[in-house]
């Protein structure tokens, strides 16, 4: 399968990329690793008129330790994110998620920014960014801005990025002392998650002092399980934690598809949240 014809330009700087995109009009798209966009183009589900290759813009690559947060450039590959030493504490969630995306070949080429910009409700990174209250940074003709992950994902394959804007990276709070886990359920290895759960937990001597939970593929965008998070806070015993996790039923009914009914998705979410919270809290007795 070969994509429909398109024009191609390689940008050597962010400014050049933005001008090329602006000149290319509404069907121009930035191209990084291409591991989300090219498969869609080959199925002709995407037909951009112009691809602006930003893959060579070094200023968009790399992981920077800012003390209490970490900035990850859009062109940083999943392979590089998985091995980033700066991702400590709760932010280690991002590295764990990156390590489980696709396979080694995909992780060598696929980028964090491309995955975020693609805004696939079944992809793993968005739920993790949401759980960590990360910010997505954007550059456009009007300058740069940053958008909270909670406001960035607006629908299936739709984000708050305007035409002509490029995702330049994400800023992730470190949350030192917090533990993290990502649990996903797939029909076959490397399939998209039927449900995924990203959890960060602050486990103290008196139990759970704070928890944040992002859900993959439980709606048109990644979701936060706010009711579960609130109920988890202050719990320490397994029975209390399981009762808190059952609050997942307060979520809006998840979609049904060929892999799972809505009821099954809710069941999976409950099981996977329990596992993820136990793993993130570091209490193996909770795990099944």
């Amino acid at each position: 399968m070969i994509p429909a014809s398109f024009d191609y330009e390689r940008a050597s700087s962010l400014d050049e990329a933005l001008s090329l995109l602006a000149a290319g009009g509404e069907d121009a798209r930035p191209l990084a690793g291409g591991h989300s966009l090219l498969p869609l183009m080959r199925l002709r589900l995407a037909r951009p008129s112009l691809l602006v290759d930003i893959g060579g813009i070094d200023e968009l690559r790399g992981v920077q330790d800012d003390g209490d947060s970490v900035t990850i450039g859009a062109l940083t590959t999943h392979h590089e994110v998985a091995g980033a030493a700066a991702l400590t504490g709760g932010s280690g969630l991002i590295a764990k998620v990156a390590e489980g995306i696709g396979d080694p070949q995909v992780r060598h080429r696929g980028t964090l920014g491309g995955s975020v910009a693609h805004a696939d409700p079944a992809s793993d990174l968005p739920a993790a960014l949401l759980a960590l209250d990360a910010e997505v940074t954007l550059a456009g003709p009007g300058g740069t801005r940053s958008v909270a992950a909670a406001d960035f994902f607006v629908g299936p394959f739709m984000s708050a990025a305007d035409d002509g804007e490029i995702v330049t990276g994400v800023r992730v709070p470190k949350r030192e002392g917090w533990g993290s886990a990502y649990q996903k359920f797939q029909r076959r290895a490397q399939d998209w998650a039927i449900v995924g759960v990203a959890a960060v937990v602050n486990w103290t001597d008196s139990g759970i002092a704070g928890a944040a939970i992002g859900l993959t593929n439980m709606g048109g965008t990644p979701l936060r399980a706010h009711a579960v998070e609130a109920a988890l806070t202050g719990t320490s015993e397994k029975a209390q934690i399981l009762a808190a996790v059952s609050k997942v039923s307060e979520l809006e009914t998840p979609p049904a598809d060929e892999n799972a009914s809505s009821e099954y998705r809710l069941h999976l979410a409950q099981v996977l949240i329990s596992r993820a919270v136990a793993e993130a809290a570091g209490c193996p007795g909770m795990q099944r």
Partner: protein
Amino acid sequence: MKRISVTVNGVRHEADVEPRTLLVHFIREQLELTGTNVGCDTSSCGACTILMNGQSAKSCTVLAVQADGAEVTTVEGLASNGDWHPVQKAFHEQHGLQCGFCTPGMMMAAVGYLDENPSPTEDEVRLALEGNLCRCTGYHNIVKAVLAAADDMGS
């Protein structure tokens, strides 16, 4: 058409390509290096695995224009001066193939991985090959071959 310059197996090639040309088609049809196979055509099976700047990549999901300026190694580039690469030797000796279709991709994934981790455990080898499918399900000997190659290269 776009002019690109790609170094494949140490030889620099200048060529004009349509932007939509996939790297695997450029390698197979323009350079006539047909060792790299097209299997699933959907970035799943790994039969088209090559090394791009030393890292394994699925060449069905890379545009030829994206490889402009890159160093690419295909299965034809593994042997040197008529001597097989230790990974090729090990696949031969351990019978790491049945029909052979996945073999070039398996070997390229293995070569890329052993460069990163020269003495892996069996579990690590299995994980490292998760992006390569063998329809004959001959994984057992493939894993044995990669471990044997690691031993050979380390000794």
